[in-house]
């Protein structure tokens, strides 16, 4: 039956010297990323045109899109920007890390709501990662500046006579957009900070009433979370094409968030273990459960993605199909779509099916890295295909350098959030249950 509970006080459970290691590595990555971005960006001419975007550029995209019908019969006007700018790869990477952070917040909240026992040994790491919302806010500032917005969102300066954008002007306008984004970050930063602080406070006090308190608070927090992630998805990603809409879009982003976070969680824990932290507190049982969640959300993501595609494909209404047409009318984006089907769903589905793969470190690492890579591809798929009407592959080295730079900063953020406190929620009364937990 259950193995003997370990004495948590004998466990190496602080980030300790590893924190400076993470910060150094993160800083190094950030510097490499920023330098690479500057250098390559200059070579590629990415910084040449950071002023107001050319608003005539939409028609080039329209031409490249060929005979495909204009959305909603509104003639030449388009709801998207088709000219590449450095803000596009920037948005891809920012959304990649934002969704991971959202997944971390959901993990914390849902395990409080359900009074989950098994996950207590892992919760502190999720709490730490969820503190990165502050970093995410800073990273989003360039996008939210008028210059950045102008290069990303056509609705900021729509084509004259674009009636479709006209009707939603009361929602899609700069001021109201900024207020909404601010509100989302207030919710995210507030909730994640509160849950992390209270959990840390419990480390020393062991106060049981904190568990009850957070449990009672978490349902309200989840409601705020659900509304904020949905409308953030609409605002940041769906409105990239201001003509297009899909009611499931928020759920789609949610599915990817939770999936990618579990991959990050697995990688973080295994990295900590390889450096001698949490070697006994986190067992293969926990890893298997994290793997199960990755598996479950791989399937859930596929279910949501399929639902969206199938319904739009079947009903075949031009105002909706434009979004997928753009992703299917060139071989490259067609290939990318199949990458989503096979790489984002089928491969991890088959790979993560086996119990042994989820319990073995090397295989779990492979699975988690794969899932993360696919999540990045997913974000790319949401942002990029409207560039040049899908005719030209927008990949540049900047996609990678910006990702590296943000990844470095993200690692620093994680180190800052996790250092100084125990890596385990050691005052949580549910911890003993988690330490002896076994998959039956």
């Amino acid at each position, binding site marked *: 039956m259950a193995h003997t509970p370990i004495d948590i006080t004998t466990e190496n459970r602080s980030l300790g010297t590893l924190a400076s290691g993470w910060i150094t590595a993160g800083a190094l990555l950030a510097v490499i990323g920023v330098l690479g971005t500057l250098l390559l960006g200059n070579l590629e001419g990415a910084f040449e045109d950071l002023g107001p975007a050319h608003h005539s550029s939409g028609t080039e995209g329209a031409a490249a899109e060929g005979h495909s019908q204009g959305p909603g019969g509104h003639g030449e006007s388009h709801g998207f920007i088709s000219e590449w700018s450095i803000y596009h790869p920037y948005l891809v990477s920012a959304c990649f890390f934002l969704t991971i952070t959202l997944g971390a917040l959901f993990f914390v909240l849902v395990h409080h709501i359900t009074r989950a026992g098994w996950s207590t040994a892992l919760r502190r790491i999720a709490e730490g990662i969820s503190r990165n919302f502050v970093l995410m806010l800073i990273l989003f500032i360039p996008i939210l500046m008028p210059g950045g917005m102008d290069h990303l969102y056509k609705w900021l300066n729509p084509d004259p006579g674009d009636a479709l954008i006209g*009707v*939603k002007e009361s929602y899609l306008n700069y001021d109201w957009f900024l207020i909404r984004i601010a509100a989302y970050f207030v919710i995210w930063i507030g909730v994640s900070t509160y849950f992390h602080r209270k959990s840390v406070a419990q480390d020393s006090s062991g106060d049981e009433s904190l568990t009850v308190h957070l449990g009672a608070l978490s349902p309200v927090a989840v409601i705020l979370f659900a509304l904020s992630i949905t409308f953030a998805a609409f605002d940041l990603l769906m409105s990239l094409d201001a003509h297009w809409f899909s009611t*499931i879009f928020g759920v789609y982003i949610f599915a990817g968030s939770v999936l990618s976070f579990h991959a990050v969680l697995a990688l973080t824990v295994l990295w900590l273990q390889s450096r001698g932290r949490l070697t006994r507190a986190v067992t293969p049982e926990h890893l298997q459960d994290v793997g199960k969640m990755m598996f479950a959300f791989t399937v859930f993501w596929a279910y949501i993605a399929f639902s969206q595609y199938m319904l739009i494909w079947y009903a075949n209404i031009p105002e909706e199909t434009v979004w997928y047409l753009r992703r299917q009318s060139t071989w490259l984006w067609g290939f990318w779509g199949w990458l989503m089907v096979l790489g984002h769903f089928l491969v991890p589905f088959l790979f993560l099916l086996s119990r042994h793969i989820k319990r073995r470190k090397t295989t779990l690492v492979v699975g988690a890295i794969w899932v993360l890579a696919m999540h990045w591809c997913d974000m790319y798929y949401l942002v990029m295909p409207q560039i040049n009407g899908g005719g030209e592959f927008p990949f540049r080295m900047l996609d990678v350098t910006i990702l590296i730079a943000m990844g470095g900063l993200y690692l620093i953020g994680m180190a800052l959030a996790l250092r100084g406190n125990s890596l385990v929620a050691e005052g949580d009364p549910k911890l003993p249950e988690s330490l002896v937990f076994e998959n039956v």
Partner: protein
Amino acid sequence: MKDLKGFINPNLTPGWESPETLNTWDKPGSRTPLIGAGNTDATVTEKVCRVIEGPPTIGWIIFFLISASALSLLGILVPYLIFTGVGVWGVNNPVGWGYAIVNFVFWVGIGHAGTLISAILFLFRQKWRTSINRAAEAMTIFAVICAGLFPGIHVGRVWFAYWMFPIPNQMELWPNFRSPLLWDVFAVGTYFTVSLLFWYMGMLPDLASVRDRAKEKIRKVAYSVLSLGWTGSNRQWHNYERAYLLLAALATPLVLSVHSVVSFDFAISQVPGWHSTIFPPYFVAGAIFSGFAMVMTLVVPARHLFGLKDVITMRHLENMNKIIMVTGMIVGYAYLVEFFIAWYSGNEVEKFTFLNRALGPYAWAYWIMVSCNVLTPQIFWFKKMRTNLKVMFIVSIFVNIGMWFERFVIVISSLANDYLPSAWDYYRPTIVDVGILIGSFGLFFTLFSLFCRFLPFVAMYEVKGVIAGQEHAERQEESAGSSTEEGASPATAMT
């Protein structure tokens, strides 16, 4: 087994807890026993088997007679419909789908709780499912039977209903594989088959218990046949548990797929108010919502009538109320997002459809739906309400009403006021429509009362596994002072 009070931190409870609600509290870090103290393997068997071994109670006979009378309505009206034609219904020119489709979707939805409880909650290691899964699965099967009735009688010429199946024939006549109505045949058919197998397989050890207790000859033979020669040997248990896990994993996607396919019936079309990409997960959440409400409607009186209050405890009921609350809010989320996107899309017809739902001729139905589905469950924010039997029973009825009206709103309002105002009409059900709806409830409750009478209402062997786990945890706590691991395999409970 020690007193429940030992599991509670008196500083963290409000002080109004009654003996009945005591096991809904946990001292953080410990798990309060699910099953009432004083229950052993023997008492569980006794309590559950007593229901089906004694003579029927007066209450049961009255309930059965009322249900059977309602069922007879079906026996009269369905032949009348078949001999006369679907004109006896209230369907009219724009509204070609009336009560029949509303009832079909309603009953399929009800049928979702069972497999969710037995498969998904099993995979999530939720031990509390063990006291309610048998009844919920039975309910699922009966609900799917009720659902299956409606497409069958809706085809008009019922004698050609077998054309729904792709049977090779010399006319080279095939159903339209591109139609989600045909996918329904497969989805619901698969769901029914797997649910039935899952339910029956899960019952084998308990049927054997009933067989072993049987005194009369006929009873013994009947339950011997039903229990398929179960002996409870170690080897049988080993295979059984492997099979149960695999069936649970296979049944899990079915919980999602059936109502997703049902939602496709609407969402693949171009009808405003039907074509929305959120429909599949939204329908699934609604189905679980209504299914749990129906379980609640059935279980609250049943545990009282059958004396199972300390087997199906307040903890079980509270957990179900929480699920009702969560799924109710997911449904509310979908209403909100649909409404928002209807406006955001800039599509005039879409916008009109949603405003028309809230303010048009069917506004009364829309607001019944919203208040029952979104507002009523909010009362469960208060623990005192979540653990109040009268409140939860009333809420469950409201949710059932609300979910029926949800389907009514979706089906009727979108069809009645479509693109051409000159083609609009107001849908009015006829007495036959209402009679068949009541009749389907009769069918459902008749089958359910028969189930209560002849089959074990609670999965005895699984509850025994939970009791064994509780005792195991207590022993560990006594020896180690910290461990709270819950649950052991049913095998250790039986052998």
